[in-house]
């Protein structure tokens, strides 16, 4: 069973659903090992999600996601400062993890309907991998986000920037999900695509349900229910802080 580690097949950026090497891949150790494996050798992560260490690996991936989302949240909250320095990280991390939790059962269903041979344990690992990749990429964007947050007063502009970063991170996260589906013998990808749209909509709506994240408000959570597109439209049409004479 424990055979010497082999060099995995060369990276193929357009097709990361490469066939599994015959020999056992190297174990994924620690937080940095997991991040490295996610970015450079995702098939190693997928393999170890099927072994006895899958629970530990999933927990590590979730820890990476939580820590990175919290850190990114501090950067996002630095736009307004004050209460947002702790509220934004809690909302971003909590909101994303909660979105993944409520979307997880439907991913399992869509996976099974697509013929994926993965149980709940493996699916939990796939979701954790998705969140971890998203979180790590957002950390990569964090310095850019911080620079912009210190040099602009437009909530709409900062919101658009964070959403853009989030969408890029989401795109790479879903590549991991796609590759996992291929590895677990999915016969169809239609369900996976539908699920990704659902997850994206839930995440976008969660940012509105937990507002304000960038701006300030008298209450921690909103008193009015709004669809995220309506909220974005209101933000774009709202007067800027310069126009209202409000200082940061």
């Amino acid at each position, binding site marked *: 069973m424990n055979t010497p580690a082999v060099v995995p097949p060369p990276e193929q950026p357009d097709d990361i659903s490469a066939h599994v090497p015959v020999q056992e891949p190297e174990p994924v150790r620690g937080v940095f090992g997991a991040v490295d494996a996610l970015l450079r050798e995702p098939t190693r992560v997928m393999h170890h999600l099927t072994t006895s260490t899958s629970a530990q690996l999933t927990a590590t991936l979730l820890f990476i996601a939580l820590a990175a989302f919290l850190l990114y949240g501090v950067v996002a909250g630095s736009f307004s400062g004050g209460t947002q320095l702790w509220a934004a990280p809690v909302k971003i991390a909590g909101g994303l993890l909660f979105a993944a*939790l*409520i*979307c997880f*059962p*439907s991913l*399992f*269903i869509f996976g*099974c*309907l697509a*013929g*994926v*041979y993965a*149980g709940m344990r493996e699916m939990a690992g796939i979701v954790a991998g998705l969140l971890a990749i998203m979180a790590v990429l957002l950390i990569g964007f964090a310095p850019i986000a911080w620079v912009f947050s210190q040099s602009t007063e437009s909530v709409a502009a900062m919101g658009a920037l964070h959403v853009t970063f989030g969408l890029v991170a989401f795109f790479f996260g879903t590549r991991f999900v796609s590759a996992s589906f291929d590895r677990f013998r999915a016969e169809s990808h239609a369900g996976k695509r539908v699920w990704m749209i*659902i997850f994206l909509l*839930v995440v976008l*709506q969660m940012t*509105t*349900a937990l507002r304000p994240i960038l701006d300030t408000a008298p209450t921690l959570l909103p008193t009015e*229910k*709004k*669809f995220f597109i309506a909220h974005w439209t209101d933000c774009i049409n709202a007067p800027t802080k310069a126009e209202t004479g409000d200082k940061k």
Partner: protein
Amino acid sequence: MNSEKHPSLLAEIPVLLRGEAEPIARWMQRWETRRVVFYIGVIALGAGAYGAAMGCWRAPLQATYVAVKFPLIILLTTFGNALLNGMFAPLLGLNLTVRQSILAILMSFTIASTILGALSPLLVFLVWNVPPLEPGQPIPQSTYLSIQLTQVAMIAFAGVSANLRLMQLLRRLSGSAQIARRVLFSWLAGNLFLGSQLSWILRPFIGSPFLKVEFLRSNAFQGNFFESVFNAIRELMR
């Protein structure tokens, strides 16, 4: 999936969802009470969770009522039509016993209920993001319609997926796509006929802010679903 002598029944759910022909056909050959009870339990839980999500927009009590009513409709339809469906199958060329017909339909409803149960957190999230359906609380027409359409889409998706799997099973058992189609359509026609009337009797599900929360409407046994559809069409044509 391992097919041991006494596998965990929970492990059969992914097998049903994937539509694995061999194990499912094997389960069809023998009536096992524990399997039937398990399917009924999954229907109660899955459809019950979805029913609760449907009703929670109106009130927590409405959620409780619909959590009971939704699985009840499924189970009453299955067992109410059991004899009829059991007779249709051999008459249309598929040599199944009444018990096997019940088992096949229960499997299909188990798939649908599992899907609906998995989608119920999403429905609750959607309802959480709109104003509550309360007396005196104005709800935009677009909001009400989007909730309704979302529910229609979810139920339609669950129903289509479950019937696709049932079709695959019938095709394997009969060896003929034509026989499988005939049997499926006959079962669907009977189930839709009885199911729609049971839904009419057991209304409300989403509820109305203008009517109180109750398990059954006071006029539950007056009129029927098809009569109301006929009257609605007649009104439209005037």
